[in-house]
C-alpha cells in the first residue's frame, strides 16, 4: 500500500490540502472515491489513501490503524475492474469534478463503515467537531476558522501517521533484505561444497529443498577434501616415480594411497546410513563419473582393464594372477548385480502390492521402507568388493608397479572429472 502511495505521490497527483478542501465541501461524505487527476490513466490505480483514511476515521473514530490496514487490502482484480461502487450520499450532486473509477474491493463493500446511514455519519462528524481545537461550534463567523484549524490539525496528524507507517515499512524491507542476503550467501556456500541443495529436492516431501541432511552435507564436504587430497597424492606419486626414490619411501606413498581409498569407503558407509538413495544416485560425483556408476561407485573390473595396460611389464605369474582377479571380480559383480535386480523386483512387488488405484497405500509404504535397508547392504558390499580388489592388486604387484597403478588410477579419475567440467562449460548450440 505504501508503494502505491509513493506512486501516487510521485505522480504529483495527490495534493493533501486540495483534497481536504474538497472533503470539507462534502461534510457528510462517507465514501472513498478515486480521484483521477491524470486522465491518462484510464484503468487508474490511483487512489487517495489520505482521503480514505480521514473518511475512515470520521466513521470509526475509535478504530485503530490495524482496522484501517484491513480495509486497505488491494487485490489486482478489484483494481482493474471499471465498475463503480460507492455509497450514495445526499451531497453527491455537488461533486462534479470527481470521477469515480475503480472499485475499492470486496473489503470495502462488506465493511460496515462505508455503508452506514447518513445519520451515523452525521453523528461521527459532530464528534470529530468536538475534538477539534476550536471549541466554538455553530457560530457562522467562527466556522471558516474552525474549519481551517481542524483541517490543519488533521493534516498534521495524518502526515505524522503516514511518516510513521512509512518508516515501519522501510524497516520491514530492510530486515527482509538482510535476510535475503544471508540466505543467498548460505546457498552459495552450499553450492560450492557440492550442490546437495539442488539434488536434495526429493529430500523433503513438501516439495521445497528443505533441511539439508546433515550426514550428507558432512559427506559432501569430506568428499571435497578427499578429492583435493587425492589430487595432491597423484602429484606426489608422479614426482616420486620420476625422481626414482627408494622402494621404502615409495611403499609409504603406496600405503597412503591405499588408505586414502579405504577412507573413502568408510565415508561412504556412513553416508549410506544417512541417505542411501543419494549415494546411489552419484550426485556427489561429476557427470562423467556418474555415467560409469555401479552401485554407488566405480566398477572394479573396469578399473582392472584400465590398469593392466598401464602396468607393463608384468611377469607371467602376475599376468595369471591379474587374469584370475579380473575373472573373480567379474563374477562377484555379476552376483551383486543379480542381487540388485532381485531387490528391485521385490521392491516393485511390495510397492505395487494390493490394488493400485485405491488411493491408500500405507501398508505398502511401510513394507517398502523395510526393504530399503537392503540397499545399504548392497552399497557396503560393493565398496567391500572395491576394497578387496585394490588390496589384492597391491599383493600381486611390486611396490613400483603398485605406485604406477595408483598414479594411473588417480589420473584416470582426474581425466573423468576434467571431462565433466568441459562438458559443463561447453558452448550451448543455438536451437
Amino acid at each position, binding site marked *: 500500500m505504501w508503494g502505491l502511495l509513493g506512486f501516487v505521490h510521485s505522480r504529483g497527483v495527490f495534493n493533501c490540502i486540495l483534497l481536504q478542501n474538497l472533503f470539507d465541501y462534502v461534510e457528510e461524505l462517507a465514501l472513498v472515491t478515486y480521484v483521477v487527476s491524470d486522465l491518462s490513466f484510464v484503468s487508474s490505480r490511483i487512489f487517495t489513501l489520505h482521503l480514505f483514511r480521514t473518511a475512515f476515521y470520521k466513521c470509526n473514530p475509535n478504530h485503530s490503524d490495524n482496522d484501517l490496514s484491513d480495509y486497505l487490502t488491494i487485490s489486482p482484480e478489484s483494481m482493474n475492474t471499471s465498475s463503480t461502487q460507492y455509497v450514495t450520499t445526499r451531497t453527491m450532486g455537488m461533486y462534479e469534478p470527481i470521477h469515480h473509477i475503480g472499485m475499492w474491493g470486496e473489503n470495502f463493500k462488506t465493511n460496515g463503515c462505508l455503508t452506514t446511514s447518513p445519520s451515523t455519519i452525521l453523528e461521527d462528524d459532530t464528534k470529530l467537531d468536538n475534538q477539534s481545537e476550536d471549541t466554538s461550534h455553530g457560530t457562522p463567523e467562527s466556522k471558516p476558522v474552525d474549519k481551517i484549524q481542524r483541517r490543519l490539525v488533521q493534516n498534521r496528524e495524518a502526515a505524522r501517521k503516514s511518516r510513521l507507517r512509512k518508516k515501519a515499512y522501510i524497516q520491514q524491507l530492510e530486515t527482509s533484505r538482510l535476510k535475503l542476503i544471508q540466505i543467498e550467501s548460505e546457498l552459495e556456500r552450499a553450492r560450492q561444497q557440492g550442490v546437495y541443495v539442488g539434488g536434495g529436492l526429493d529430500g523433503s516431501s513438501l516439495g521445497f529443498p528443505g533441511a539439508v541432511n546433515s550426514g550428507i552435507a558432512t559427506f559432501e564436504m569430506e568428499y571435497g577434501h578427499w578429492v583435493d587430497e587425492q589430487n595432491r597424492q597423484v602429484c606426489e606419486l608422479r614426482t616420486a616415480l620420476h625422481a626414482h626414490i627408494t622402494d621404502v619411501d615409495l611403499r609409504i606413498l603406496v600405503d597412503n594411497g591405499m588408505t586414502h581409498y579405504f577412507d573413502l569407503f568408510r565415508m561412504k558407509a556412513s553416508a549410506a546410513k544417512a541417505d542411501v538413495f543419494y549415494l546411489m544416485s552419484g550426485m556427489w560425483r561429476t557427470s562423467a563419473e556418474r555415467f560409469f556408476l555401479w552401485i554407488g561407485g566405480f566398477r572394479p573390473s573396469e578399473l582392472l582393464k584400465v590398469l593392466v595396460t598401464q602396468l607393463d611389464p608384468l611377469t607371467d605369474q602376475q599376468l595369471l594372477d591379474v587374469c*584370475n*582377479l579380473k575373472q*573373480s*571380480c567379474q*563374477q*562377484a559383480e*555379476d*552376483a*551383486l548385480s*543379480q*542381487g*540388485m535386480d*532381485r*531387490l528391485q523386483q*521385490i521392491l516393485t512387488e511390495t510397492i505395487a502390492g494390493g490394488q493400485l488405484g485405491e488411493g491408500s497405500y500405507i501398508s505398502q509404504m511401510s513394507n517398502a521402507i523395510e526393504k530399503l535397508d*537392503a540397499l545399504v*547392504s*548392497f552399497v557396503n*558390499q560393493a565398496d*567391500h*568388493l572395491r576394497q*578387496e*580388489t585394490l588390496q*589384492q592388486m597391491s*599383493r600381486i604387484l611390486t611396490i613400483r608397479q603398485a605406485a604406477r597403478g595408483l598414479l594411473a588410477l588417480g589420473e584416470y579419475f582426474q581425466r573423468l572429472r576434467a571431462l565433466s567440467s568441459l562438458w559443463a562449460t561447453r558452448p550451448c548450440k543455438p536451437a
Partner: protein
Amino acid sequence: MQEAMPHRTFFPATVGGRRLSSIGREAETAEEVVRGGDGGSVRSMVSENAVIVFGKRGCCMCHVVKRLLLGLGVNPAVFEINDEDEAEVIAELFAIVGGGDDGGLQLPAVFVGGKLFGGLDRVMSTHITGELVPILKQAGALWL
C-alpha cells in the same frame, strides 16, 4: 566331464563337473531350496551338505551368495528361514557352531563342509583372493 542332463537348466561352464545333489535326491530345479523351520533337520542338513546357505526368506544378500556360488559351479543348498522360525534356527546354528563365538551369527550364513564358513563378506574376500575355490573343492562342493 559334463553330463548331459536335459532336464536341468543351464549352468555356466566356468568349472566343469558334476552338480552335487543334496539330501540324496536328484533335484529337478537348478537350485535346491529347502524350506521349513524344523529344528532337528538343521543339524542334519548342515552335516549332509557340502555347501549350505542359511538366509531369511526374500533376503537379497542370500540371493547374491547363491548366485556367486552358482557362478562358480557350486550347487548350494539354500535354507530359507521363515520370520517366525528365525530365532529358533539361529539358536540351532549357534549350537552347531559351538556357541559363544562372535556373539552374533550374521545371516546369510554359509556352511562349508559342515562348518561355519562365514557371511557374504568372507565369501567375497576369499573369492577375490582366490581362496574360495580350493576350499570348496576340499569340501567336495566342486569337482574339477
